[in-house]
C-alpha cells in the first residue's frame, strides 16, 4: 500500500447559518484550528493553495484562490479554485495530493468554503440547478431535490425500498450529529417527524434534504516523509478515485444506479489494495437520504438493489458492521456545498486519531470518503488510513 500523501492537520469552522460572517472569515476560523494543530510549520513552506467552492451566486465572489491565500498570509504562493459543484472540496484535496505525488510541492493547503445563507431558498434552488443539464433539465424545472426524487422513485419501484428507509437514514444521521459539537443541526428526530415533514419534491420531504449551510474546512498535506516534523498523529491518503457521469440524469441507462460512484470507489480500492470489507467506516454524500442508500451499494457495502437492507438492519449505525456518516453527514452536520468534501475529511482524520468522543468508532483503521457533485455526475473518493 502506497501512502500518497500525509494529512498532518485539519480544521473546520462551526457549520450553520452565520449572517454575521463572510466566507473568508469562516476560512480563517477553520485555518486557525489546523494551524494550531500543526507544530514546526513555517507558512513560507506551504507551496500552493487549492480551494473548493461551488458558486459565485451566493456572495458574488469568485477568485477564492487569491482571497484565501491573501487572508491566510500566504501571498505570493500559487492558488486555484476547483469546482465540481458539491464535489469541490474533495477535488481540492485530490488536487493537493496530486501536487505532492508529482513532486511539484512538499506541503500544500487545501480548503473548501461556501457561504450560502445570504440568499433565499428560491435563489439557492436556482444556483444549485446550474449543476444539472441546462437544455432539458433546468429548462424543464428540474430542481435538485426533484432529480434525487427521480432516483428515489426509480429505486423504490425497481427494488422495493420505501419512504420509511429514507426516513431511517435521516434519523440515524441526526442522532450521530447530536454528539458533534460543530454540526449544523443537533436535534433528534423520529421517523414520524421525517414522514410528516413538508413535501419538497415527492417522495422527498424536508427532512430527506440536507440543510443550507455556511462553513469552511481545511487540511494541511505534506509528503509522507515529512509528516513527523509537523505532528505525532498524521493520517495518510492511500487511495483516491475520480469518475464522471452524464450531467443529465435522464441520459443514463439506469437512473437508480450511481455508476460514477461505483467506478470511483473501485479505483480507490484498487489503488489501496483494499476491499469494501476492509473499510472501518465511511463518510458519504447524503445530500438527500436516497443518496446514502445508493452509496451503500456503489461502495460495495450492500449488493446492487439492496442498500435499504443495510439501514433496516442497522449495519450503518455507529457500532454496526460498517458505520456511515458518524459526523451526522450532510444531512445533520450540514452541507456548505464547496466545503463538504473537506468536512468529511475533518471527521475522518479525527476519527482515525480517536478524537470523536461519544461518536468515536472503535478500532477504526481505514475510512472511505465519497464526495460528489450534480446528480453523482462528478465523484471523488478517498481512502484514508492512520
Amino acid at each position: 500500500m502506497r501512502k500518497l500523501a500525509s494529512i498532518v492537520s485539519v480544521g473546520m469552522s462551526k457549520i450553520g447559518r452565520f449572517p454575521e460572517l463572510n466566507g473568508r472569515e469562516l476560512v480563517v476560523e477553520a485555518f486557525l484550528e489546523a494551524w494550531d494543530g500543526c507544530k514546526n510549520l513555517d507558512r513560507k513552506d506551504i507551496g500552493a493553495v487549492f480551494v473548493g467552492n461551488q458558486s459565485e451566486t451566493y456572495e458574488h465572489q469568485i477568485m477564492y484562490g487569491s482571497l484565501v491565500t491573501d487572508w491566510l498570509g500566504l501571498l505570493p504562493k500559487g492558488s486555484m479554485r476547483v469546482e465540481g459543484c458539491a464535489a469541490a472540496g474533495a477535488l481540492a484535496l485530490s488536487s493537493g495530493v496530486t501536487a505532492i505525488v508529482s513532486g511539484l510541492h512538499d506541503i500544500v493547503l487545501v480548503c473548501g468554503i461556501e457561504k450560502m445563507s445570504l440568499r433565499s431558498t428560491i435563489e439557492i434552488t436556482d444556483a444549485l440547478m446550474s449543476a444539472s443539464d441546462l437544455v432539458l433539465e433546468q429548462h424543464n424545472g428540474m430542481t435538485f431535490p426533484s432529480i434525487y426524487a427521480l432516483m428515489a422513485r426509480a429505486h423504490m419501484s425497481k427494488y422495493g425500498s420505501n419512504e420509511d428507509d429514507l426516513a431511517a437514514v435521516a434519523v440515524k444521521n441526526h442522532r450521530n450529529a447530536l454528539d458533534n459539537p460543530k454540526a449544523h443541526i443537533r436535534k433528534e428526530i423520529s421517523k414520524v417527524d421525517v414522514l410528516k415533514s413538508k413535501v419538497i419534491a415527492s417522495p422527498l420531504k424536508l427532512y430527506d434534504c440536507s440543510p443550507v449551510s455556511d462553513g469552511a474546512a481545511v487540511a494541511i498535506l505534506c509528503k509522507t516523509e515529512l509528516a513527523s516534523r509537523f505532528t505525532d498523529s498524521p493520517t495518510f491518503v492511500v487511495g483516491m478515485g475520480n469518475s464522471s457521469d452524464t450531467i443529465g440524469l435522464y441520459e443514463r441507462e439506469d437512473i437508480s444506479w450511481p455508476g460514477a460512484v461505483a467506478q470511483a470507489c473501485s479505483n480507490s480500492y484498487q489503488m489501496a489494495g483494499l476491499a469494501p470489507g476492509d473499510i472501518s467506516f465511511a463518510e458519504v454524500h447524503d445530500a438527500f437520504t436516497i443518496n446514502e442508500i445508493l452509496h451503500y451499494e456503489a461502495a460495495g457495502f450492500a449488493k446492487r438493489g439492496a442498500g435499504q437492507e443495510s439501514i433496516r438492519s442497522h449495519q450503518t449505525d455507529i457500532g454496526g458492521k460498517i458505520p456511515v456518516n458518524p459526523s451526522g453527514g450532510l444531512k445533520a452536520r450540514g452541507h456548505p456545498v464547496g466545503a463538504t468534501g473537506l468536512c468529511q475529511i475533518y471527521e475522518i482524520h479525527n476519527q482515525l486519531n480517536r478524537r470523536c468522543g461519544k461518536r468515536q468508532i472503535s478500532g477504526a483503521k481505514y475510512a472511505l470518503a465519497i464526495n460528489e457533485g450534480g446528480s453523482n455526475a462528478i465523484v471523488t473518493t478517498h481512502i484514508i488510513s492512520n
Partner: protein
Amino acid sequence: MSQPTSFRTEFTIENFFRKLKEEGSLSAARCEKCNFKMIPPRPICSRCLSCDLEWVRVPARGKIVSFSEVHVSSENFQRLLPYVVCIASFGDDLKIPGILKEVKNVKVGSEVEIEIQPDKKPEYVFALSSADRV
C-alpha cells in the same frame, strides 16, 4: 497536412428547437455507425465519435420511468407550483425529461404523449395518455 476548415454541424441545440417549432415534434440524432441516439443532438456520437449522424423523430408515446411532484422551485417556475417532473422512455434507447401536464394519478409505467407548445416555455410537455387518465 492542411489545417482543418472551420467546424460546421447541423446537429445543434438551436436546430433541435427550430425543428420542434417547424415540425411539431421532438427530434434526436442517431449515429449511423453504432445506432446510439442523442437528445438534444450532439455534433459527434459520444459513444463511437462518428460524425455520420441522422435526425430521427422521437415516437409520440412513451412511458414514465420516474416522476416527482415539485413543491419548491426557482423563480422561473413559481407560477407552475406544484408541478410534476418526470423522465419518460421512448423505446428502449431514449429517455427524455419533462414536465407532466397533470399532477394526479401519475404512476411509474403510465403512458404519456408529447405535446409541443412552440410559443411557450418549456417548449414541450408530457400528457398522460387517455387510457392512463382517470
